[in-house]
Structures are given as structure tokens and as C-alpha cells.
């Protein structure tokens, strides 16, 4: 059984189910818009400009929307003990992890693709090629968010408090990538030269690599029964 075929089959199955009712997608987008409103209305309009607030809101919104999206990943496998159906097959746990992670990544990126333009509209950011820079950072960050997120969602789902536990476990792990990504975003929006940017991107890529590898290594221990 080839690793990639199993991983792709699992990811495709997840996305197909999500496509059927789009609950996670719709909820995450709705949630992201609400987070923006919460920020705008709790801001002191006289002293804090929208432009100054924009990068903060973007990253709070994306981090929280990611957590909302990840909750569904293994809940879906709980109905009819479907996860056991996968574990029964000659598929290694690493392929299972990569399948679930891939589906999460695609879903989070789709949510980003929809919410970043909304954020630009709400925060009066002019359409400009630099938006693609922000998008690239968001993609890198999505990898870093979903790698530990997929691992933790598999653990949290074994308890009765999955939706509560996942953010508590995951958010400390999101602090470094969040910080690197928001620093990069601030510099992109200020049209800073690449030299000021590349350090943050490298840190983000390092975080992605380390935690994707580590989560892949530790996932079999979470599946072991």
C-alpha cells in the first residue's frame, strides 16, 4: 500500500464530506467575520486607527478560525467508529496523519482565501500585489498551525471535552508562528525590503518543518490502542 495513495484517499474523503454540508467552512468564515467585528467595536476609535489594528486582527482571526476548523477533523472519524475502519486497513499511522493534516491544511487555506479579502475590505486596505505576500505568509502559518493542531485534535477527541481542550492545548503552540507571521505581515504592509522580511519567514518555515516532522513521529503513539 503506497503511503501517498492512502494519504490522498483520506484527505479526499475528508474534503468530500466537508463539501457535502460545508459546516466547518461556513462556521469558520462566520467566526472570522465575527472576530473582526469584536475587534472593531471594542477599539477606541479616537486613538487606535483601523490601519494600526489590521495586522493584529488578521492573525487573531486566522488563529482562532483555524482552531474552529480543526475541531471537526477527528470528530468526523468518531461517528460509527470510522477511525477504526482506517486503522484496520494496512495503512500506516503516518499516512493517516498526513491525510488528515492535508485535509485540514486545504480547509484552512480555503478559509484564509475567503477571509483575507473580507479583512481587506473591513480594514480599508487597497488591493495591491503585496496582498499576495500576506497570502504567502498565511499559507506558511497555516502549515505551522495545522501540524500540531492535527495531532492535538486526535488526542482531544478521545475525551468528552474535545472542543474545549483543543484550544487550551493548541494555543501555546500557536504563539511562535503567530508572532513570526504577524511580524512578517507588518513589514509587508509597510513595504519593507525583503531583507527585513526573510528572517521572519525563515523562522516560520523552521517552525513548520520541526513540528510537522515531530507531529508525524508522535502521531502513531496517539493512535496506538
Amino acid at each position, binding site marked *: 500500500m503506497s503511503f501517498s495513495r*492512502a494519504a490522498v484517499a*483520506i484527505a479526499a*474523503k475528508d474534503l468530500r464530506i466537508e463539501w457535502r454540508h460545508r459546516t466547518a467552512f461556513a462556521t469558520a468564515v462566520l467566526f472570522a467575520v465575527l472576530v473582526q467585528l469584536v475587534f472593531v467595536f471594542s477599539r477606541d476609535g479616537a486613538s487606535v486607527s483601523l490601519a494600526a489594528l489590521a495586522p493584529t486582527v488578521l492573525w487573531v482571526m486566522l488563529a482562532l478560525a483555524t482552531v474552529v476548523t480543526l475541531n471537526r477533523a477527528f470528530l468526523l472519524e468518531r461517528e460509527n467508529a470510522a477511525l477504526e*475502519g*482506517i486503522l*484496520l486497513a*494496512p495503512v*500506516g499511522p503516518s499516512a493517516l496523519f498526513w491525510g488528515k493534516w492535508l485535509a485540514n491544511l486545504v480547509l484552512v487555506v480555503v478559509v484564509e482565501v475567503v477571509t483575507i479579502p473580507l479583512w481587506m475590505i473591513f480594514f480599508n486596505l487597497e488591493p495591491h500585489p503585496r496582498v499576495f505576500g500576506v497570502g504567502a505568509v498565511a499559507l506558511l502559518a497555516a502549515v505551522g498551525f495545522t501540524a500540531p493542531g492535527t495531532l492535538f485534535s486526535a488526542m482531544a477527541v478521545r475525551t468528552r471535552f474535545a472542543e474545549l481542550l483543543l484550544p487550551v492545548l493548541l494555543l501555546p503552540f500557536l504563539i511562535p508562528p503567530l508572532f513570526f507571521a504577524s511580524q512578517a505581515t507588518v513589514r509587508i504592509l509597510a513595504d519593507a525590503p525583503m531583507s527585513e522580511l526573510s528572517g521572519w519567514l525563515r523562522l516560520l518555515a523552521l517552525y513548520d518543518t520541526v513540528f510537522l516532522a515531530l507531529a508525524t513521529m508522535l502521531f502513531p503513539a496517539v493512535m496506538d490502542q
Partner: protein
Amino acid sequence: MNPSSPPVIEALSLERRFGHVRALRSVDLTVAAGEVVLLVGPNGAGKSTLLRCLAGLARPTRGSVRVCGALLQRDPAARAGVGFLSHQTFLYDDLTARENLRFAAALHGLDSVEQRVMDALDAAGLTQRADARAGVLSHGTRQRLAIARATLHGPAVLLLDEPFSGLDGASVEQLRSGIAAGAAAGRAVVCVTHQPGDVWQIATRVVMLSRGAVVLDIARPATLEGFVTSYNQALAA
């Protein structure tokens, strides 16, 4: 029982603990091709745990399980030889019957997926409902789909945990003849049930577990009534 054929599945001194509870204590079980083993015993005797160990879903604390000679814990490919149906169906309610089977085929790395899926749907009498979502199917239909899913890859051994619960008479009959046909074609079957009457006639052997140990392992007696006495004796011992 056919002692000449090599064992399809072979469990040696299996022990399984859940935390501090010993669910299985040194269980040996060997099943040959074509055998239909009825696994009985009171609640909490360890029947489901044994089945989960045989399926490779639960790691035995001690002991080993071999499927067609390959060690299940070591060699993931050995899983290809096992089909398992628990009281759960392993189906995704939001996928259609066909999609569920396609997914199972992909997981097992099968070739000519479409043909196999069509054949399986046909054999299970599900061709009409192939594109209905699993969640909307009736209980009996879903159970047939679950069986089709569990046997799609042509496993050498089929493990069944309470496959008849909640099924009506016609569905029971259909499932029973399906199991018998598989066994006739050389498949080894282990079936856990509280209603042994449903499979009595096709069973070849009866194994009884009590408090995590095999207390009885005999060729299937002619009548269920005759077996009840030995069952109660074994339970009292």
C-alpha cells in the same frame, strides 16, 4: 474442524490489560481455513477484546497474533488478511454506499476499484441504493453495506462482533448465507454473538471465554440445547 489445513489466524498466549484490569489472560486460539468459530461467554468475559486483538485494533499486552503466518503487530501488511465488523459499521454517514466502499478499497490499495465496488454492491443487493448516503439507509441495509465493506478486500479471516443485533429475520438469513458462502470458499470466520441460534447451523466449532480465559473449545454440538448444559457447567467451574 479440519486439522490438516494450516491456521489462517493464530493467537498465542494473548494477554490484554486495560490499565489495571486484565481483560484477557493467556488466550490461545487457532482457526483454520473454512472454520466458523462461534465465540461465546458471559458479559465481560473478554470476547470483544479478543476480537479487537485479532483484528489488530488493540495491542495485546503480551502474546502474539499471526495472520497467514505474518505477525500482526509487526507487519502492517498482515492486516490485509483480516476483515472485521464490530457493532460499529465504520461507515461515513455523509458518503454514499459506493463512496464508502471506494474509500475502503483505496485504503486497502486494491486495483480495479470500480469493478470490485460494483460487484460488492451487487452481492450485497445494494445496487439500487448505491448512490444513497449511508446515513439514510435502514439499519439492515447499513449492516449489509458494513459487511460488504469488511469483506471487500477478500480477507482470509472474517471477525464478526454481534453482527445480527437489530436485524430482522430476512436480513439475518441473508447475512448467515453470506457467511456460510465465505466459509465454503475457504474463509475462516470468528463470530461473537449473544444469539448463538442465528449461526448455530453453520458453525463448526464453539469456543467459550470466561473471565478472560478459554474454558471450552469443542466441535459444534448437534443442538444448541445440548450445548447449554456444558456452557453452564463451564461457567460454574
